[in-house]
């Protein structure tokens, strides 16, 4: 009987040696004359266990990890093909606490299936949402999405249904669905994991968006730093087109929808939707002033839905299970689930999909298990390079758009970077300004000039030059950037800077360097 072994093809698993493991498993299989089928699945999102190798048994899938190529012969000797015990054995995959505690709606298939197998996709409820959408009127689909409470998962948190409604009601001969897959925030990798681990769900979500709004063409704009995601997504599009999921008649319906993937070229600011649209049009990735809204004048001046990968990938389950099912998860105005990415200096790093509302402390200490170095957690940055640094004192903050905003932070794309007590928050504040200076598109002065002046001002504080005066100046500069910048790059860079100054004042008062000591 053929035994199925799962070895991830996710970029993070590959970065930890999954390819060598797959080669070793294939080699041992051949040498021992065994009947084994290797499936290259996505990642389950438990990065401290990658490469995570799974074997399908009568009792369910049994996990082994982290597996190195040199462990492979020993695994075969121990009889891992029948799920036998071994020092690396983790038991049944679904019983691993990190997975068991999750509510996987958007990521239900990620790590479970062969990302490029449509049979797998259908077997695990794929295309159910699209089939349902085809039988509905566009306005009904939009209403369903509105009722689900889904808000933009890219970070802005704008209600997805409202955006769709605007595009649906706009009259135009051509409308577009643009998927923002320009996931540049440090600590985030949810978009990448979906594109590499379950690309059909994004295609399905975009097709539903197209039917709902009357858009017949879609683009996925992703990063050149994600070659694996680009390759997998591209293959999935080809397969979907052949299967009639994309094309002139989506699943045999009257609706046409097709899709292309486009690669950015290393500019962080292109994750901002108007800059992304300019880049997609082939221009410099300069931010546009709003209005006009992209929903009315977006790609090539036509009505365009710009949604994040996770927003679009959450649509199929919402359509399939219904708005009420999705809305019942979460708290306050943050409905449904959010894939939290726990990263940086953390013991159990990875992707944890759960309903909104867990406290930051639960996420970092209990789920993440504290730091990888074993030292105390000093700070966590939530929401990428434009997110605030939170001290332990604020670990009771629930994971919710409004709760984070109330504490001068943001959840952004739900990435959390953990830092231990060796971190220097003044250095991090300087980096935030430096990053803004490097990545600024240059259109507005507060961002372009403010960030450069910000770096200089932090440097003066570090050197002990009039520290109090310069701290006041830095705060004033942050205020100008926050309210005077055109987009979130200049507008949100003050979050990490101000939070570092506010919560970690001791780091901004170093012993003044005594110059010319010798």
């Amino acid at each position, binding site marked *: 009987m053929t035994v199925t072994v799962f070895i991830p093809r996710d970029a*993070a698993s*590959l970065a930890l040696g999954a390819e060598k493991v797959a080669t070793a498993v294939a080699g041992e299989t051949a040498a021992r004359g065994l009947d084994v089928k290797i499936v290259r699945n996505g990642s389950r999102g438990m990065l401290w266990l990658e490469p995570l190798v799974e074997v399908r048994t009568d009792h369910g899938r049994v996990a082994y990890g982290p597996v190195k190529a040199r462990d492979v012969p020993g695994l075969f000797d121990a009889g891992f093909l029948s799920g036998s015990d071994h020092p690396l054995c983790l038991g049944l995959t679904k019983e691993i606490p990190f997975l068991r505690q999750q509510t996987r709606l958007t990521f239900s298939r990620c790590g479970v299936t062969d990302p490029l197998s449509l049979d797998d996709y259908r077997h695990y409820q794929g295309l159910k949402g699209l089939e349902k959408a085809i039988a509905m009127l566009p306005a009904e689909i939009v209403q369903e999405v509105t009722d689900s409470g889904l808000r933009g998962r890219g970070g802005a948190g704008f209600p997805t249904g409202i955006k769709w409604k605007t595009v649906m009601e706009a009259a135009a001969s051509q409308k577009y669905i643009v998927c923002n897959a320009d996931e540049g925030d440090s600590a985030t990798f949810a978009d990448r994991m979906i594109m590499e681990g379950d690309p059909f769900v994004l295609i399905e979500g975009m097709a539903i968006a197209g039917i709902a709004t009357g858009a017949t063409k879609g683009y996925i704009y992703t990063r050149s730093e994600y070659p694996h995601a680009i390759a997998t997504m591209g293959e999935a599009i080809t397969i979907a087109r052949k299967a009639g999921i994309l094309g002139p008649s989506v699943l045999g319906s009257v609706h046409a929808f097709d899709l292309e993937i486009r690669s950015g070229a290393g500019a962080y600011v292109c994750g901002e939707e108007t800059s992304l649209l300019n880049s997609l049009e082939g221009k410099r990735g300069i931010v546009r002033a709003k209005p006009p809204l992209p929903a009315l004048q977006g790609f090539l001046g036509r009505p365009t839905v710009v949604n994040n990968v996770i927003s679009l990938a959450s649509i199929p389950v919402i359509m399939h299970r219904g708005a009420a099912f999705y809305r019942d998860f979460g708290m306050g105005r943050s409905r449904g689930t959010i894939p939290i990415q726990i990263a940086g200096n953390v013991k159990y790093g*990875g992707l944890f999909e759960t309903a909104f509302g867990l406290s930051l402390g639960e996420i970092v200490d209990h789920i993440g298990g504290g730091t990888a170095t074993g030292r105390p957690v000093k700070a966590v940055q939530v929401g990428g390079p434009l997110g605030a640094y939170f001290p332990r004192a604020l670990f009771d903050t629930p994971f919710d758009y409004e709760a984070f905003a109330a504490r001068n932070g943001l959840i952004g794309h739900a990435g959390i970077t953990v830092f231990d007590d060796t971190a220097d928050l003044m250095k991090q504040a300087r980096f935030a300004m430096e990053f803004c200076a490097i990545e600024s598109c240059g259109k507005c002065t507060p961002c372009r000039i403010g960030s450069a002046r910000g770096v200089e001002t932090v440097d003066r504080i570090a050197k002990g030059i009039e520290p109090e005066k310069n701290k006041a100046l830095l705060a004033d500069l942050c205020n100008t950037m926050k309210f005077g910048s055109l987009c979130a790059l200049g507008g949100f860079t003050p979050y990490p800077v101000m939070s570092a100054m506010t919560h970690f004042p001791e780091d901004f008062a170093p012993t003044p360097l005594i110059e010319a000591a010798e």
Partner: protein
Amino acid sequence: MTMRISADEIALRSRDIIHDLKPLEGPMLPILHALQAEFGYLPDAVKPIIADELNLSRAEVHGVVTFYPDFRDHPGGRHVLKICRAEACQSMGGDDLADRVRSLLGIDFHQTTPDDAVTLEPVYCLGLCACAPAAMLDGAVYGRVDEHCLSEIVAELRQ
């Protein structure tokens, strides 16, 4: 082996690539990526050709090319090593790793070793943030880069 490509050759090959991609909506970035894949960089000579084919000014093309960090105006090394400099990697010793790589290769970021073996580039996030620090060598990714992993990468570079 150094290959000098004549201006005529560049023009011929560029026009072929541009003709293939021109029908796309917003063809500029796909064209620039394809040309860089073809030549290893974007020779100055391609700019007027793109301008002509897409009915743009040379200044507009130059503006686009210089906006994006990916596009280089001169050939890089045989390998390109990218080291992530973003926060998640910083939290796991990314700055020390960057210093170590710089001293091992004897070059700074944006530079190429004198033997043309490797160009060192910073990158702001490879999406490998839960297995930091991370690096990418010619499209192959590395996570939890430690001294052992680094020696593997350097061995790869020497080949």
